[in-house]
């Protein structure tokens, strides 16, 4: 009994032990928060990537040396594969844009980035224009959700089922009867540029090598599109870097001879994507439709790998930090044994077995790390679960910005708390502390009682 009694007494009586508890708590807490945020990042990034890409994408190789394969032929092969739930073709072309202005509307050069001969603005004015077939797109990707998730009511499309329609009354006066094609612009970009529904953009691109006018030298393909509304995937980079137009409008505008750049495929739930990818590749090859086939993981392997790698590095660094705090406990115990030499002699004189005397200090170490670990678990879990209120509080209280949404592509800090993992961290901390506290405990047990009693 004296072991537990004295261990508790010694702990409570010494303020240093609270320091050890707090140190371990902070270490464990920080590790838990960081792991939760990194896991949240990873999972959210995965979700985002998944949300803006299809399960599998087929990129037909159309470099002019092979036959230009019509979209419908590819779709036929793709749809015949087992495991494919749906597929749609997309056209893709990089382009620059500027606000369309008419006579009388001059001076309304609001877009600050119109000057593309400027590295600052060039980035913003470059977008990927996607030519899509809305009905098929909705069946395969989260297109409908992107349209619904728009937050500003006056930027939403008129009718989600027909996203490229816009009420003529909303179109700027001089464009109203021009029969211009429509375009969907990401909400974040519209907000950043101060764009409105019904305004028009001039979209300019270079024609590709296999365009209809091929061989006539470089000629700009330019067209004016009316903004029919906006979309929001939640992926900041995607939302500011992509615009949707209808397939027909895309073909008219770019003058390309191919009618598909990529085929987006939705797989049936539970299908092995890697196997389906290989099957698709083989099937297309057989039909002499040469194409690259990639799963969403293949496409974003580097990005996801980078986040995963970052998580590993941070976990490693903070793990070391936790080990460091464990060594603080170690040093505290070494000091405690030194301070308690006389007590050890007294206890020996009362007949306390040396094993019991050693255990007093081992129990001290275990208690410090266990209480500290649980404290860290509590605080860490709480902070991880309330990451955003905590972040807001810190930002308003200290006036610093700790989370920039345009850097991270998220508006909120994503967290994902894995309770089992966290409990494991605490358990490991306690086990490690006990292990390294065995040394001071052993020292205490080995003290010669007579020398301890003579100790000044």
């Amino acid at each position: 009994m004296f072991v537990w009694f004295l261990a508790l007494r010694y702990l409570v009586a010494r303020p240093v032990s609270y320091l050890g508890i707090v140190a371990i708590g902070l270490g464990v807490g920080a590790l838990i928060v960081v792991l939760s945020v990194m896991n949240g990042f990873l999972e959210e990034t995965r979700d985002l990537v998944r949300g803006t890409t299809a399960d599998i994408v087929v990129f037909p190789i159309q470099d002019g040396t092979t036959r230009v394969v019509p979209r419908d032929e590819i779709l036929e092969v793709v749809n015949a594969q087992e495991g494919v739930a749906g597929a749609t073709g997309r056209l893709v072309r990089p382009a620059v844009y500027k606000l369309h202005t008419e006579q009388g509307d001059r001076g309304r050069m609001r877009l600050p980035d119109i000057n593309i001969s400027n590295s600052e603005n060039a980035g913003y004015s470059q977008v990927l224009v996607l030519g899509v077939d809305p009905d098929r797109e909705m069946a395969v990707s989260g297109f409908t959700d992107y349209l619904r998730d728009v937050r500003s009511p006056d930027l939403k499309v008129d009718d989600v089922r027909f996203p490229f329609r816009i009420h003529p009354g909303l179109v700027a006066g001089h464009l109203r009867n021009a029969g211009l094609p429509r375009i969907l612009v990401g909400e974040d970009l519209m907000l950043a540029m101060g764009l409105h529904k019904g305004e028009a953009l001039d979209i300019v691109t270079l024609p590709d090598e296999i365009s209809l006018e091929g061989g006539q030298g470089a000629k700009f393909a330019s067209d004016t599109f009316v903004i029919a509304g906006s979309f929001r995937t939640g992926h900041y980079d995607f939302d500011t870097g992509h615009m949707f137009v209808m397939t027909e409008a895309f073909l008219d505008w770019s003058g390309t001879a191919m009618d598909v750049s990529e085929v987006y495929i939705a797989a049936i739930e539970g299908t092995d994507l890697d196997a389906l990818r290989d099957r698709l590749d083989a099937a297309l090859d057989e039909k002499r439709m040469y194409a690259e086939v990639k799963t969403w993981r293949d496409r974003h392997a580097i990005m996801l790998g980078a986040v995963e790698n970052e998580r590993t590095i941070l976990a490693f660094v903070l793990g070391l930090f936790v080990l460091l705090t464990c060594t603080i406990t170690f040093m505290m115990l070494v000091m405690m044994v030194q301070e308690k030499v006389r007590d050890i002699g007294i206890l020996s004189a009362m007949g306390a077995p040396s094993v019991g005397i050693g255990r007093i200090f081992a129990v001290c170490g275990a208690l410090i790390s266990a209480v500290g670990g649980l404290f860290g678990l509590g605080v860490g879990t709480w902070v991880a679960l309330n990451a955003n209120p905590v972040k807001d509080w810190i930002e308003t209280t200290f006036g610093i910005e700790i989370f920039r949404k345009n850097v991270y592509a998220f508006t909120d800090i994503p967290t994902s708390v894995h309770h089992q993992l966290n409990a494991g961290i605490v358990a490991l901390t306690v086990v490690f502390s006990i292990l390294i506290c065995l040394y001071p405990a052993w020292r205490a047990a080995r003290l010669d009682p007579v020398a301890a009693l003579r100790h000044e």
Partner: protein
Amino acid sequence: MSDLEDAPSLSAEDHPGVRGAAAPAEPDAREEILVARGLTRRFRMGSSVVEILRGADLTLHKGEIVAIMGRSGSGKSTLLHQLGLLDRPDDGELVIRGEQTTTLSRAERCRLRNHEIGFVFQFYHLLPELTALQNAVMPLMIDHGVLAWLARRGSHTRRAREMLSELGLRERLTHKPSQLSGGERQRVALARALVGQPSLLLCDEPTGNLDETTSERIADQLFGLAERHGHTLVMVTHDADLAARADRILTLHDGVLTD
């Protein structure tokens, strides 16, 4: 001071019978508590070896009170540590209540020390974080595991409290050693030494750090309790008056005990 009332009742005069029976005329009639033969202890000091005990012999009977005197550095404390099983002799043997201790394991020696031996030191040696009551009950706590302790906590604590009350410390139970005077501390130490009802009480200059009046009172209580409970008492002291109250006075000189 409550101890002023308590002290006389514990003094030797009230219990003359016990010591009377301990007259050296027929010592072998009583149980041998401790027998030491040829205890030898050497210390290595750098390259030389100093022999502090050179074959000390000692036989103690139940209820006997023995004073040990000797020059400073003659090895009195060393001898007490030997008798109390805190240290092993380099040579010689030590039998406590019939048990040959030289062959016992470390754990068995601890158990024997806990059950049979109580120590009182010159500098009290209380545990500073604990109250008087917690200090006094510690030997009993050491003797019990968690469950056994919880089952008998009440009676053990009562025993320690009674012990302290008997020594006039009823009002001091929850005081820490730092809040007690020297005399009070030594009485707590006395209570702690006696709470486990050991057969042998080893005191190393128990009054060496106290003023004369306090010394006398502590000595009265010490002798009184030892006689009443039948403890065998070994007391190292430099105080000739105190030593004179013992049944026997031994002198440690040149590593041997002589009458």
